Protein backbone atom coordinates (compact mmCIF):
# COMPACT_ATOMS: atom_id res chain seq x y z
CA UNK A 1 0.00 0.00 0.00
CA UNK A 2 1.24 3.41 -0.92
CA UNK A 3 0.76 6.18 1.59
CA UNK A 4 1.27 9.85 0.92
CA UNK A 5 1.75 12.59 3.45
CA UNK A 6 -1.95 13.49 3.53
CA UNK A 7 -2.96 9.93 4.42
CA UNK A 8 -0.37 9.82 7.14
CA UNK A 9 -1.72 12.97 8.78
CA UNK A 10 -5.29 11.73 8.50
CA UNK A 11 -4.60 8.39 10.14
CA UNK A 12 -2.31 9.97 12.72
CA UNK A 13 -4.95 12.54 13.63
CA UNK A 14 -7.61 9.90 14.05
CA UNK A 15 -5.36 7.85 16.29
CA UNK A 16 -4.54 10.93 18.38
CA UNK A 17 -8.23 11.79 18.90
CA UNK A 18 -8.99 8.20 19.79
CA UNK A 19 -6.13 8.02 22.28
CA UNK A 20 -6.96 11.30 24.01
CA UNK A 21 -10.65 10.36 24.20
CA UNK A 22 -9.64 7.09 25.81
CA UNK A 23 -7.37 8.85 28.27
CA UNK A 24 -10.07 11.37 29.20
CA UNK A 25 -12.60 8.59 29.64
CA UNK A 26 -10.21 6.73 31.88
CA UNK A 27 -9.57 9.86 33.90
CA UNK A 28 -13.27 10.46 34.41
CA UNK A 29 -14.09 6.88 35.25
CA UNK A 30 -10.87 5.92 37.00
CA UNK A 31 -10.14 9.02 39.06
CA UNK A 32 -13.41 8.79 40.95
CA UNK A 33 -12.06 8.33 44.46
CA UNK A 34 -13.17 4.96 45.72
CA UNK A 35 -14.04 5.07 49.45
CA UNK A 36 -10.62 4.54 50.95
CA UNK A 37 -10.69 1.21 52.71
CA UNK A 38 -8.56 0.96 55.84
CA UNK A 39 -5.31 -0.85 55.05
CA UNK A 40 -3.67 -2.35 58.12
CA UNK A 41 -0.29 -2.61 56.41
CA UNK A 42 -0.15 1.19 56.00
CA UNK A 43 -0.28 2.00 59.72
CA UNK A 44 1.78 1.49 62.85
CA UNK A 45 0.05 3.17 65.75
CA UNK A 46 1.53 4.65 68.89
CA UNK A 47 1.22 7.67 71.14
CA UNK A 48 3.17 10.65 72.41
CA UNK A 49 2.56 11.82 75.98
CA UNK A 50 3.95 15.23 76.87
CA UNK A 51 4.45 15.33 80.66
CA UNK A 52 5.05 19.10 80.44
CA UNK A 53 1.50 19.62 79.20
CA UNK A 54 -0.48 17.30 81.47
CA UNK A 55 -2.63 19.16 84.04
CA UNK A 56 -4.09 16.05 85.69
CA UNK A 57 -7.71 16.98 84.90
CA UNK A 58 -8.69 13.37 84.17
CA UNK A 59 -10.50 14.20 80.90
CA UNK A 60 -8.75 11.28 79.23
CA UNK A 61 -9.92 8.85 81.92
CA UNK A 62 -13.54 10.02 81.66
CA UNK A 63 -13.43 9.96 77.88
CA UNK A 64 -12.00 6.43 77.83
CA UNK A 65 -14.54 5.24 80.35
CA UNK A 66 -17.46 6.66 78.34
CA UNK A 67 -16.18 5.57 74.96
CA UNK A 68 -15.40 2.00 75.94
CA UNK A 69 -17.90 1.37 78.76
CA UNK A 70 -15.10 0.57 81.17
CA UNK A 71 -16.63 -0.92 84.35
CA UNK A 72 -16.55 1.23 87.50
CA UNK A 73 -13.31 0.97 89.41
CA UNK A 74 -11.36 -0.36 86.41
CA UNK A 75 -9.21 1.75 84.11
CA UNK A 76 -7.76 1.41 80.64
CA UNK A 77 -5.98 4.70 81.16
CA UNK A 78 -5.32 6.59 84.37
CA UNK A 79 -3.26 9.54 85.59
CA UNK A 80 -0.70 9.36 88.38
CA UNK A 81 0.49 12.30 90.45
CA UNK A 82 4.14 12.02 91.40
CA UNK A 83 5.72 13.86 94.31
CA UNK A 84 9.43 13.26 94.31
CA UNK A 85 11.58 14.25 97.28
CA UNK A 86 15.15 15.32 96.78
CA UNK A 87 17.31 12.23 96.42
CA UNK A 88 14.51 10.28 94.72
CA UNK A 89 13.79 8.16 97.82
CA UNK A 90 10.21 6.88 98.06
CA UNK A 91 8.33 9.12 95.67
CA UNK A 92 4.66 9.53 96.60
CA UNK A 93 2.40 8.31 93.80
CA UNK A 94 -1.33 8.92 93.98
CA UNK A 95 -4.12 8.21 91.52
CA UNK A 96 -7.49 8.54 93.29
CA UNK A 97 -10.03 6.48 91.28
CA UNK A 98 -7.58 6.62 88.38
CA UNK A 99 -8.07 10.42 88.44
CA UNK A 100 -11.46 10.01 86.76
CA UNK A 101 -12.55 13.11 88.70
CA UNK A 102 -9.21 14.83 88.58
CA UNK A 103 -7.13 15.29 91.73
CA UNK A 104 -8.15 16.72 95.12
CA UNK A 105 -6.34 19.74 96.50
CA UNK A 106 -2.81 18.59 97.29
CA UNK A 107 -1.21 18.83 100.73
CA UNK A 108 1.51 21.43 100.48
CA UNK A 109 4.98 19.93 100.15
CA UNK A 110 8.12 21.30 98.65
CA UNK A 111 8.64 18.15 96.57
CA UNK A 112 8.96 18.14 92.83
CA UNK A 113 5.51 17.24 91.47
CA UNK A 114 4.09 16.30 88.08
CA UNK A 115 1.43 14.15 86.42
CA UNK A 116 2.00 11.00 84.40
CA UNK A 117 -0.85 9.68 82.26
CA UNK A 118 -0.62 5.93 81.72
CA UNK A 119 -2.16 3.49 79.30
CA UNK A 120 -1.26 0.34 77.41
CA UNK A 121 2.08 0.93 75.69
CA UNK A 122 1.07 -1.18 72.69
CA UNK A 123 4.46 -2.87 72.74
CA UNK A 124 5.69 -4.35 69.49
CA UNK A 125 7.36 -7.19 71.38
CA UNK A 126 4.94 -7.55 74.20
CA UNK A 127 5.25 -10.06 77.07
CA UNK A 128 1.45 -10.16 77.46
CA UNK A 129 0.84 -11.56 74.00
CA UNK A 130 3.66 -14.07 74.33
CA UNK A 131 2.19 -15.78 77.39
CA UNK A 132 -1.37 -16.22 76.11
CA UNK A 133 -1.94 -19.97 75.90
CA UNK A 134 -4.71 -19.78 73.29
CA UNK A 135 -3.83 -16.85 71.03
CA UNK A 136 -6.58 -14.60 72.37
CA UNK A 137 -4.33 -11.57 72.72
CA UNK A 138 -2.07 -10.41 69.96
CA UNK A 139 -0.41 -7.48 68.20
CA UNK A 140 -2.52 -6.55 65.18
CA UNK A 141 -0.81 -5.92 61.82
CA UNK A 142 -1.13 -2.18 62.50
CA UNK A 143 0.57 -2.40 65.89
CA UNK A 144 -2.33 -2.43 68.37
CA UNK A 145 -2.42 -4.97 71.20
CA UNK A 146 -5.94 -6.40 71.33
CA UNK A 147 -7.82 -9.07 73.30
CA UNK A 148 -10.26 -11.33 71.49
CA UNK A 149 -12.84 -11.50 74.25
CA UNK A 150 -14.76 -14.34 72.63
CA UNK A 151 -11.63 -16.48 72.63
CA UNK A 152 -10.08 -15.45 75.96
CA UNK A 153 -10.23 -18.07 78.71
CA UNK A 154 -9.80 -15.58 81.53
CA UNK A 155 -6.67 -17.29 82.86
CA UNK A 156 -5.13 -13.90 83.79
CA UNK A 157 -1.67 -14.97 82.64
CA UNK A 158 -1.33 -11.80 80.56
CA UNK A 159 -2.51 -9.63 83.46
CA UNK A 160 0.54 -10.82 85.38
CA UNK A 161 2.86 -10.58 82.39
CA UNK A 162 2.18 -6.92 81.59
CA UNK A 163 5.03 -4.89 83.15
CA UNK A 164 2.87 -1.76 83.14
CA UNK A 165 -0.24 -3.07 84.90
CA UNK A 166 -2.49 -2.17 81.99
CA UNK A 167 -4.78 -5.21 81.96
CA UNK A 168 -7.69 -6.26 84.14
CA UNK A 169 -10.28 -9.01 84.24
CA UNK A 170 -13.66 -7.61 83.24
CA UNK A 171 -15.99 -8.41 86.16
CA UNK A 172 -18.95 -9.31 83.92
CA UNK A 173 -17.45 -11.13 80.95
CA UNK A 174 -14.63 -12.59 83.09
CA UNK A 175 -12.29 -12.13 80.18
CA UNK A 176 -9.29 -9.85 80.02
CA UNK A 177 -9.87 -6.28 78.95
CA UNK A 178 -7.49 -3.44 78.13
CA UNK A 179 -6.89 -0.32 76.08
CA UNK A 180 -7.63 -0.96 72.40
CA UNK A 181 -6.15 2.41 71.36
CA UNK A 182 -9.78 3.03 70.35
CA UNK A 183 -9.33 0.62 67.44
CA UNK A 184 -12.94 1.30 66.38
CA UNK A 185 -12.12 5.01 66.04
CA UNK A 186 -8.59 5.09 64.62
CA UNK A 187 -9.51 2.69 61.83
CA UNK A 188 -12.22 5.17 60.78
CA UNK A 189 -9.94 8.20 60.67
CA UNK A 190 -10.80 9.54 64.13
CA UNK A 191 -8.34 9.93 66.97
CA UNK A 192 -8.68 8.05 70.26
CA UNK A 193 -11.24 9.26 72.82
CA UNK A 194 -8.47 10.25 75.27
CA UNK A 195 -6.52 12.25 72.69
CA UNK A 196 -9.70 13.86 71.34
CA UNK A 197 -10.63 15.11 74.80
CA UNK A 198 -7.24 16.08 76.22
CA UNK A 199 -7.65 19.85 76.70
CA UNK A 200 -3.91 20.58 76.54
CA UNK A 201 -2.93 18.12 73.78
CA UNK A 202 -0.67 16.32 76.23
CA UNK A 203 -1.56 13.08 74.44
CA UNK A 204 -1.32 12.61 70.70
CA UNK A 205 -2.13 9.56 68.67
CA UNK A 206 0.65 8.96 66.14
CA UNK A 207 1.13 6.77 63.10
CA UNK A 208 4.78 5.83 62.67
CA UNK A 209 4.22 4.61 59.11
CA UNK A 210 2.82 7.95 57.99
CA UNK A 211 5.82 10.00 56.79
CA UNK A 212 3.83 13.23 57.26
CA UNK A 213 2.95 12.49 60.89
CA UNK A 214 4.37 15.17 63.24
CA UNK A 215 5.72 12.33 65.41
CA UNK A 216 8.91 12.12 63.33
CA UNK A 217 9.73 15.79 63.90
CA UNK A 218 8.76 15.45 67.57
CA UNK A 219 11.04 12.49 68.21
CA UNK A 220 13.90 14.26 66.46
CA UNK A 221 13.59 17.44 68.50
CA UNK A 222 12.59 16.21 71.97
CA UNK A 223 14.17 14.15 74.70
CA UNK A 224 11.78 11.26 75.00
CA UNK A 225 11.70 7.94 76.76
CA UNK A 226 9.46 4.92 77.06
CA UNK A 227 8.43 3.38 80.38
CA UNK A 228 10.68 0.59 81.65
CA UNK A 229 13.00 0.51 78.63
CA UNK A 230 15.00 -2.22 80.39
CA UNK A 231 12.10 -4.62 79.76
CA UNK A 232 12.82 -4.41 76.00
CA UNK A 233 9.13 -4.55 75.17
CA UNK A 234 9.49 -2.07 72.29
CA UNK A 235 6.82 0.13 73.82
CA UNK A 236 5.25 2.61 71.40
CA UNK A 237 4.05 5.21 73.90
CA UNK A 238 6.76 7.87 74.05
CA UNK A 239 6.92 10.23 77.03
CA UNK A 240 8.42 13.67 76.65
CA UNK A 241 10.52 14.85 79.60
CA UNK A 242 9.90 11.73 81.66
CA UNK A 243 11.41 11.98 85.14
CA UNK A 244 13.70 9.20 86.33
CA UNK A 245 11.44 8.59 89.33
CA UNK A 246 8.60 7.30 87.15
CA UNK A 247 8.07 3.55 87.23
Amino acid at each position, binding site marked *: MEMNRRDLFRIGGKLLVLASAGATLEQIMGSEPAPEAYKMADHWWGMIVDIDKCIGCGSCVRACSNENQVPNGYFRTWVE*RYEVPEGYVNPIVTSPEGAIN*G*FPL*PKPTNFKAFFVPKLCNHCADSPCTQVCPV*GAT*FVSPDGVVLVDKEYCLGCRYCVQACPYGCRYLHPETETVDKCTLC*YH*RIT*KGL*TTACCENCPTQARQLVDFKNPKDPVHEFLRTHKVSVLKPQMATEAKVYYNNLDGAVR
Partner: protein
Amino acid sequence: MRSTFRDAAHLLRPAALLLIGLAVFLVVRAAVIPKGFGKYGHYRAPFLETARSKPIHYAGQDACVACHDEEAKMRAAGKHAKVACEACHGPQAQHADDPTSLKPKLPDVATLCARCHEKDPAKPRTFPQVVTAEHNAGAACNDCHKPHNPHLD
Protein backbone atom coordinates in the same frame (compact mmCIF):
# COMPACT_ATOMS: atom_id res chain seq x y z
CA MET B 1 10.41 -59.10 45.26
CA ARG B 2 8.05 -61.56 46.74
CA SER B 3 10.20 -61.92 49.87
CA THR B 4 9.92 -58.16 50.59
CA PHE B 5 6.14 -58.25 50.85
CA ARG B 6 5.88 -61.77 52.26
CA ASP B 7 4.52 -60.60 55.62
CA ALA B 8 2.74 -57.55 54.30
CA ALA B 9 -0.65 -58.77 55.43
CA HIS B 10 -0.09 -58.06 59.11
CA LEU B 11 0.98 -54.47 58.33
CA LEU B 12 -2.34 -53.67 56.73
CA ARG B 13 -4.28 -53.44 59.98
CA PRO B 14 -1.94 -50.93 61.70
CA ALA B 15 -1.70 -48.98 58.45
CA ALA B 16 -5.47 -48.75 58.26
CA LEU B 17 -5.65 -47.74 61.93
CA LEU B 18 -3.04 -45.07 61.32
CA LEU B 19 -4.98 -43.73 58.37
CA ILE B 20 -8.22 -43.66 60.36
CA GLY B 21 -6.39 -41.91 63.19
CA LEU B 22 -5.01 -39.33 60.78
CA ALA B 23 -8.44 -38.76 59.26
CA VAL B 24 -10.00 -38.32 62.73
CA PHE B 25 -7.22 -35.88 63.65
CA LEU B 26 -7.75 -33.84 60.50
CA VAL B 27 -11.53 -33.74 60.94
CA VAL B 28 -11.28 -32.73 64.62
CA ARG B 29 -8.60 -30.17 63.83
CA ALA B 30 -10.71 -28.58 61.13
CA ALA B 31 -13.69 -28.53 63.49
CA VAL B 32 -11.98 -26.94 66.49
CA ILE B 33 -9.76 -24.32 64.82
CA PRO B 34 -11.80 -21.16 64.51
CA LYS B 35 -12.38 -19.57 61.13
CA GLY B 36 -9.58 -17.25 60.04
CA PHE B 37 -7.18 -18.36 62.79
CA GLY B 38 -3.60 -17.84 61.66
CA LYS B 39 -4.32 -15.55 58.72
CA TYR B 40 -2.11 -12.77 60.17
CA GLY B 41 -0.69 -14.55 63.19
CA HIS B 42 -1.59 -16.80 66.10
CA TYR B 43 -5.10 -15.35 66.56
CA ARG B 44 -8.54 -15.14 64.97
CA ALA B 45 -8.33 -12.68 62.09
CA PRO B 46 -12.11 -11.96 61.97
CA PHE B 47 -11.89 -10.46 65.47
CA LEU B 48 -10.18 -7.40 63.95
CA GLU B 49 -13.44 -6.66 62.14
CA THR B 50 -15.39 -7.11 65.40
CA ALA B 51 -13.03 -4.70 67.17
CA ARG B 52 -13.51 -2.15 64.41
CA SER B 53 -17.29 -2.31 64.48
CA LYS B 54 -17.80 -1.11 68.06
CA PRO B 55 -20.04 1.96 68.37
CA ILE B 56 -18.49 5.44 68.62
CA HIS B 57 -19.55 7.69 71.51
CA TYR B 58 -17.44 10.81 70.97
CA ALA B 59 -18.37 12.39 67.64
CA GLY B 60 -15.23 14.52 67.43
CA GLN B 61 -15.21 18.28 67.28
CA ASP B 62 -15.51 18.56 63.51
CA ALA B 63 -19.02 17.19 63.92
CA CYS B 64 -19.86 19.78 66.62
CA VAL B 65 -18.42 22.73 64.73
CA ALA B 66 -20.38 21.76 61.61
CA CYS B 67 -23.60 23.03 63.27
CA HIS B 68 -22.64 25.18 66.26
CA ASP B 69 -21.09 28.13 64.39
CA GLU B 70 -21.44 30.73 67.10
CA GLU B 71 -19.84 28.71 69.87
CA ALA B 72 -17.12 27.55 67.50
CA LYS B 73 -16.25 31.15 66.56
CA MET B 74 -16.20 32.24 70.19
CA ARG B 75 -14.02 29.33 71.21
CA ALA B 76 -11.61 29.84 68.31
CA ALA B 77 -11.01 33.44 69.42
CA GLY B 78 -9.98 32.54 72.97
CA LYS B 79 -7.67 30.41 75.06
CA HIS B 80 -10.01 27.43 74.87
CA ALA B 81 -9.52 27.18 71.09
CA LYS B 82 -7.89 23.78 71.32
CA VAL B 83 -10.14 22.32 74.01
CA ALA B 84 -12.43 19.79 72.34
CA CYS B 85 -16.17 20.46 72.74
CA GLU B 86 -16.84 17.03 74.20
CA ALA B 87 -14.10 17.40 76.83
CA CYS B 88 -16.63 19.57 78.74
CA HIS B 89 -19.96 18.60 77.18
CA GLY B 90 -19.43 14.84 77.28
CA PRO B 91 -19.91 12.21 74.57
CA GLN B 92 -22.32 13.50 71.90
CA ALA B 93 -22.15 11.05 68.99
CA GLN B 94 -25.84 10.26 69.40
CA HIS B 95 -26.67 13.97 69.38
CA ALA B 96 -24.50 14.45 66.28
CA ASP B 97 -26.29 11.63 64.44
CA ASP B 98 -29.76 12.84 65.35
CA PRO B 99 -29.84 16.16 67.27
CA THR B 100 -33.40 15.60 68.51
CA SER B 101 -32.71 12.18 70.01
CA LEU B 102 -30.42 13.43 72.76
CA LYS B 103 -30.28 16.92 74.18
CA PRO B 104 -26.93 17.48 75.89
CA LYS B 105 -27.05 18.61 79.52
CA LEU B 106 -25.21 21.76 80.52
CA PRO B 107 -22.01 20.89 82.35
CA ASP B 108 -21.71 21.68 86.07
CA VAL B 109 -19.42 24.70 86.04
CA ALA B 110 -18.24 24.44 89.65
CA THR B 111 -16.57 21.03 89.24
CA LEU B 112 -15.72 21.43 85.56
CA CYS B 113 -13.56 24.57 85.75
CA ALA B 114 -11.79 23.55 88.95
CA ARG B 115 -10.68 20.20 87.55
CA CYS B 116 -8.37 21.99 85.15
CA HIS B 117 -7.74 25.33 86.83
CA GLU B 118 -7.46 24.53 90.56
CA LYS B 119 -3.96 25.40 91.74
CA ASP B 120 -1.65 22.41 91.99
CA PRO B 121 2.16 22.51 91.99
CA ALA B 122 2.15 19.42 89.78
CA LYS B 123 0.58 21.41 86.94
CA PRO B 124 2.83 23.15 84.42
CA ARG B 125 3.84 26.61 85.68
CA THR B 126 2.53 28.39 82.61
CA PHE B 127 -0.94 26.88 82.90
CA PRO B 128 -3.48 29.39 84.33
CA GLN B 129 -4.43 28.28 87.85
CA VAL B 130 -6.37 29.77 90.76
CA VAL B 131 -7.20 28.77 94.31
CA THR B 132 -10.95 28.76 93.80
CA ALA B 133 -11.75 29.42 97.46
CA GLU B 134 -9.81 32.70 97.31
CA HIS B 135 -10.47 33.56 93.68
CA ASN B 136 -14.24 33.72 93.42
CA ALA B 137 -15.58 33.52 96.98
CA GLY B 138 -18.35 31.06 96.16
CA ALA B 139 -19.52 32.77 92.95
CA ALA B 140 -20.02 30.63 89.86
CA CYS B 141 -17.13 30.81 87.38
CA ASN B 142 -19.45 31.72 84.52
CA ASP B 143 -20.74 34.80 86.37
CA CYS B 144 -17.61 36.50 85.03
CA HIS B 145 -15.94 34.15 82.52
CA LYS B 146 -17.73 32.93 79.42
CA PRO B 147 -16.71 29.26 79.17
CA HIS B 148 -16.20 29.30 75.40
CA ASN B 149 -13.89 32.30 75.62
CA PRO B 150 -12.99 32.89 79.25
CA HIS B 151 -10.96 36.07 78.72
CA LEU B 152 -12.36 39.09 80.61
CA ASP B 153 -12.57 42.26 78.52
